[in-house]
């Protein structure tokens, strides 16, 4: 099937197998390997991308379902090398260790802060229910998100 979509501001038109997962389209067809695959049951959130402003787990979405959409992956988050405040906050607050869950965490955070500019720790932790990190124990991720929220509010 022929699909056309915008990924990180660039229009992509491809002929894809109807069963192709969006995450494989992004990683293998477009070569944007910053989006990760951590599970096959829609549990871990490593594959989270933003589709039309909403987070989706790209391992649980077909490429054809993304037809006509606008997608942002981690590669599209920073602007010409200038980090987004969320990225900067994760860096400043040791919000990552191995980095494998980080792309999904950052995209999830961006939506979370768009919905709630001044979240409590509990609200942040609740918002991370769909993202698993095995390294950090989440504490510095929560701290990073609070720091990003503060920067973005000011």
């Amino acid at each position, binding site marked *: 099937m022929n699909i056309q979509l915008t990924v990180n501001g660039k229009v992509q038109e491809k002929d894809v197998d109807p069963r192709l997962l969006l995450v494989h389209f992004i990683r293998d067809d477009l070569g944007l*390997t910053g989006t*990760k695959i*951590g599970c096959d049951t829609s549990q871990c959130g490593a594959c989270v991308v933003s589709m039309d402003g909403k987070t989706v787990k790209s391992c649980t979405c077909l490429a054809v379902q993304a037809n006509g959409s606008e997608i942002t992956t981690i590669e599209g988050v920073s602007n010409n090398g200038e980090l987004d405040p969320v990225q900067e906050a*994760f860096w400043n607050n*040791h919000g990552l260790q191995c980095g494998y869950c980080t792309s999904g965490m950052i995209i999830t955070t961006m939506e979370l802060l768009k919905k709630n500019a001044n979240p409590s720790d509990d609200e942040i932790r609740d918002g991370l229910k769909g993202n698993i990190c095995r390294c950090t124990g989440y504490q510095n991720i929560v701290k990073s998100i609070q720091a990003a929220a503060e920067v973005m509010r000011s």
Partner: protein
Amino acid sequence: MTTRIFGSGIRRREDPRLITGGATYTDDVQLPGMLYAAILRSPHAHAKINSVDTSAAAAAPGVVAIYTGADTDGVLNPIPCAWVPPGADLVAVAHPSIAKDVARYQGDAVAVVVAEDRYQAEDALELINVDYSPLPAVTNPEAAMQPGAPQLHEDAPNNQAFHWVAEGGDTDVAFEAADVIVKDKIIQQRLIPNAMEPRSAVASWTRATGELTLWSTSQNPHICRFLASLVTGIGEHKIRVIATEVGGGFGSKIPMYADEMIASFCSMQLGLPVKWTATRSEGFLSTIHGRDHVEYVEMAATREGKITAIRTKIYAGMGAYLSTAGPGVPTILHGLIYSGAYDIGATKADVYGVFSNTTPVDAYRGAGRPEATFLVERLVDLLAVELGIDPVELRRKNLIPKFEDGHDVASGITYDSGDYEPLLNMVLGQADYQALRQEQTRLQESGHYMGIGVTCYAEICGLGPSQVAGAVGFGGGLWESAIVRFHPTGKVNVYSGISPHGQGEETTFAQIISDELGVDVDDVSIVHGDTSNTPMGWGTYGSRTTAVGAAAMVLAARKIKEKARLLAAHLLEAAEADVEYVDGHFTVKGSPDQTKSIQELATMANVAWNLPEGMEPGLEASAFYDPPNFVYPFGTHLAVVDVDADNGHIVIRRYIAGDDCGPQINPMIVEGQVHGGVVQGIGQALWEGAVYNDDGQLITGSMVDYALPRAHLLPNMEVLSTETPSPHNPLGVKGIGETGAIASTVTVYNAVIDALRPLGITSLEMPLTPEKVWRAIRQQQGS
């Protein structure tokens, strides 16, 4: 004035590539002409393989080749077990990469499909027709040793893989003389490590040169190369292993796996690069598991509360085959550390390693030491109840007093340094322990169940002296080496055989070298993870990377400084004895103008226009560091939990971690290691646990069924520390990667039991799920 960056919590240089999607993990590697492998795995825990019919699969679209055990048999050597504890009658059963006659666990590889893309490969798997005759299976290590249990290997009667006993002091005498003995049966449930990056391998064989390049999700690429050489028969000099970015390991990426060797075999057959990447469900079955002990433990003590002995009998599940380091975990890394933080006259570990129809078991965060710490601290709490002594006071009474240079414990090992009581006091102060106990009493009166768990631990890490490695049957050395090289412009590369995969050592090692050589931290880069451009090293595990790997770098840097001093004296026309080093500069004593920076000297050494007679050009050095002893971090952890008696829910109200890993290079990173370790340990206490059914089917085979810690279930941890240097290490540093997981499981477990004790509950099996707690409470109320 000398400024040091050691001790500074600078942010990590690894992060920019990780937060922008710019890092390259193994599955991100794309090579021209690359094919994709998918592995067919046995759906049975135990079955005779009568035949494998690949004809339909071979005709499927995109399929390039299919191989079975008949193809790899005799071509690939068995996957070796590399840790064979001596005196244990260990049965080193052959572990074929692809099972040919018998599948011994659900997930055992039976065939591999190579196709043009991963979808085609997966499709073709379904067309392979395997005729199995299912056999009875056994999954529990204690049950596997009982008469009549299904047998896995002909040459391992009763499924006994080994029997290892370590006794120090006379435990029989101590138990006979004891006023009090407390006992327990502990199930150290099987855990599934679940690093977020699934395992992956890209194998690329170059027929013309006979060279194999293997990208592998490994914690130890040099060991991977060593073992790949043994399995494939290719000389090590023609194998290059690259561990690019590795997404967590926690021990699960130490072993040599069949899958990497299958991918290599396919590439060698086809002359094309082949990628294999585990799906998560595949990882649940094929990546090593951890723990899996059935333990009978007992402690002897005097009426006054002096602990005199610990004795155990342990059935340690090894899985269907012996994984790379598997047998070393419940033995050397477990049975020698029963003294923990206490002065105990006699300890004895009696350990059976047992085969079962399950995924092989190997090192998982803490590896043997969480299990040891658990049983010691569980017994201390039981003893406290038995004697009616406050559990903290009982611990304090038995703590090893301060020592700065060596303390022998009963098992025969010598702790390096320790000062346990200050950290205990610090944690108790932070918690306001007395107030907590008062609150507990108050709450109990109103029907609320709050519990406090306190753990004092000492652990063994920083593996380790190579002579000891040899003596305990480890199939390699445990030293590290480093090359430190000044480039002509004064910039520095450090090449190391260690292989960090999330721990941030590109940053912390640069901090160390920056201080050591007096150059800006940004002028130093650490190179690791590729056997073609790094010196031999044994890798990252056992909290050894800094204690051993960084020590090698420091020794190399010191050699460089000595050479630079000689060159400075020559160029400054001064006597060597008159040139002194301060903060990156060599200066003639009393003549501050007569000075050369080490970076200027690097230029002069590299251009070699004017060197002292006999001096070689260049400014670089290599050094090997073989530690004289292990290192022994220690600490006190405290948890406060609230248990809801109506529904069994447990909330961790507070968690305080007090750890001493010696001087901290980067406190921010140390704290991150503590957080992660503590949460993995909490995972074991409350949620995680592999479940097999009677047929040997893994019931918890995905992240839906296996409960990993999630953000909303966890507290903010309070992290404290003291700094007691190791006397034998050039930096005084110990290890911090595993302490959290070593201490937190039993801390939380003891806190929950402390909360439930008024309800008559004194023991529960982990994980302490709400259902289990609720049922136990109901049972008590019904009785």
